[in-house]
């Protein structure tokens, strides 16, 4: 379960997979407002929405499914392999009539840890065969976020897991305050895409069809994150990124990352990478949630693009020199 890097379906098959957007955020952050904004916008698409029972407001959509957020532990009680079994069931049933919608949006409760939702997309063969996790979108209330982050580890996890963060209610905070908030968010998650909004009024292109874990796009959106390592309290969640310019040995990398995730998977919330394997002319995309990992080739490098392998860890108690040495030891000889 933990240390195997499974191949994802090839690019052609990936296009037929129904994209799933996971919407997280603390109570009052504006999740439901954003959700209704998405659903009522003129996009000509149909979405199925999986909501939790304690939703703040009604959701205006044809196909709304109530979920109980039932998690269970895989492999006879491994806490790191906690999975949303209800989601496996619901997605499976929704796929029985997949011709009728273009995407699925899963809203989680305010206090939910995003890990079980994300891990669901790694563990179940049927879910992987029919759907793909497009992005974890976290809605953050600009007015309260700094205090919430101090008080709640769940809020930190929701930011750490995000591919996209919608910084909502920015009209309630001045520019200096917003910059401080963005700096704090980036110190936790350096690779997310961050958008400001007032009442969930973001362009849909910022939320949907994010293509999941494309690190290169993330890099484009956060060009300076490599240097930003100022935050130091070691129990805090931070991001660390690494680069290797020489091609990597695929077997060495898999052995190394497998061992890292096995030993430190509890502390590593997410890991993502774009890798240049020796002898391959395609980019290899790697991603992990705690101990669960997968990856696959995602097409050739762009013209003029340096063939550099990049890897990012988001987590607690990360040992930078050790991780760097390990990643560098994966160079092909």
């Amino acid at each position, binding site marked *: 379960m933990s240390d195997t890097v499974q191949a994802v379906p090839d690019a052609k098959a990936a296009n037929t997979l129904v994209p799933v957007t996971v919407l997280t955020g603390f109570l009052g952050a504006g999740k439901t407002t954003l959700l209704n904004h998405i659903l009522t916008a003129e996009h000509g698409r149909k979405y199925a929405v999986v909501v939790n029972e304690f939703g703040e407001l009604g959701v205006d959509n044809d*196909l709304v*499914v*109530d979920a*109980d957020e*039932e998690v*269970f*532990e*895989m*492999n*006879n*009680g491994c806490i790191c392999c906690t*999975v949303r*079994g*209800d989601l*496996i*069931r619901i997605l499976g*049933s*929704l796929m*029985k*009539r*997949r*011709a*009728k919608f273009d995407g699925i949006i899963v809203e989680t409760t305010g206090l939910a840890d995003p890990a079980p939702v994300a891990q669901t997309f790694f*563990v*179940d*063969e*049927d879910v992987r065969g029919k759907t793909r996790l497009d992005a974890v979108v976290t809605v953050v209330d600009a007015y309260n976020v700094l205090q919430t982050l101090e008080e709640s580890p769940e809020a930190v996890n929701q930011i750490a897991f995000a591919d996209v963060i919608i910084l909502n209610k920015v009209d309630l905070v001045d520019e200096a305050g917003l910059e401080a908030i963005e700096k704090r968010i980036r110190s936790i998650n350096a690779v997310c895409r961050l958008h400001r909004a007032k009442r969930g009024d973001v362009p849909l292109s910022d939320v949907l069809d994010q293509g999941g874990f494309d690190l290169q796009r993330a890099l484009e959106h956060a060009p300076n994150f490599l240097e930003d390592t100022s935050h130091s309290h070691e129990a805090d969640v931070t991001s660390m990124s690494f680069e290797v310019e020489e091609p990597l040995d695929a077997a060495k990398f898999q052995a190394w990352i497998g061992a890292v995730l096995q030993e430190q998977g509890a502390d590593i919330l997410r890991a993502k990478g774009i890798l240049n394997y020796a002898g391959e002319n395609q980019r290899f995309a790697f991603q992990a949630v705690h101990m669960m990992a997968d990856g696959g080739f995602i097409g050739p490098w762009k013209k003029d693009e340096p063939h550099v392998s990049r890897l990012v860890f988001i987590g607690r108690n990360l040992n930078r020199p050790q991780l760097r040495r390990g990643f560098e030891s994966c160079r092909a000889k």
Partner: protein
Amino acid sequence: MNDTLPPSLLERRGAQRQLEGQITGCAIARDSQQVAFATGEGDVMVAARADWGRSDAWDVQTVHDGAVLSIAPDAAPTGFLTGGDDNSLRRIAADGSVSELAKGRRWIEHITTWANDKGGVIAFASGKQVELRDAQGRDTLKVLEHPSTVSGIVFDAKGKRIAASHYNGASMWFVQAKVDTPRQLEWKGSHIGIAIHPAGEALVTSMQESELHGWRLSDGHNMRMSGYPTKVQSMAFTRNGKWLVTSGADTIVMWPFFGGGPMGKPPAEAGGIPGVMCTRVACHPVHDIVAAGFADGAVLMVDTNAQRLLPVSMAGEGAVTALAFSPDGCALAFGTEDGRAAVIDLSAR
């Protein structure tokens, strides 16, 4: 496929029809006179026995607003019950008329019925609840609460007990008990399907981790049956209870429930298609014959004594998602993910 193969059973003795949407289940009425197929688009198609050979006569109607998630023969000799993601439980009578029996707040994902000469019981699962109704379906006998969403329900052969699978095990209830306290059969993890031995010797669940768990009902002894490459979506005991037949591998897997098994015994492999996963199994009600459907749409029958394989239908596009024998053993019905629905007449001519 080469030209020298004899025509399949479907070509010689069956008929099929292409429907819109996935076939989510099929059922055959207790009197074996009608076959019904349910789809992911909310339709149900019924084929009467006189028309098994001519699929253009099969009658299609929309029964649910959304996908049909479950279908079962009615507790009466004729007709069917269906449950949908419109949270509705409906009855389709032999004349094709549709009525609503229940409407709840959750999807109706599982239906099972039991009947003998004197009467019957209807059970359906909706979220964490299993509701029992009388054979008419009008009166609620009881509502059984479970700790998490119910993933499968099954009556024992005598209709005295009903068992439900859920997270961390299964619950077994007495249908007629005055006070409802379930027997808890515990095993950590997500249980996603359930089957009971015809003589009540064992209860078996399928698990998310691609294995089976079982409990010997006499003493609660745990049984573990593992080694599957994929989740077991379908399992059935043979009529005499000697074998538990399952999907989940590229061969039909049969666990022995005799001679001390399945503990410490390897399963038998009753044949299959190399590299193609078995997705559905069904056991013949009279003979030692097992039917199996595969991920490429192929269907086989196997004589479990002679180990003889009989091709029923060649591969198509989508996986087999529904498979059932009629109670009299004279018909086999199957349906696929890409909307193929077929009936094969097995009666002597």
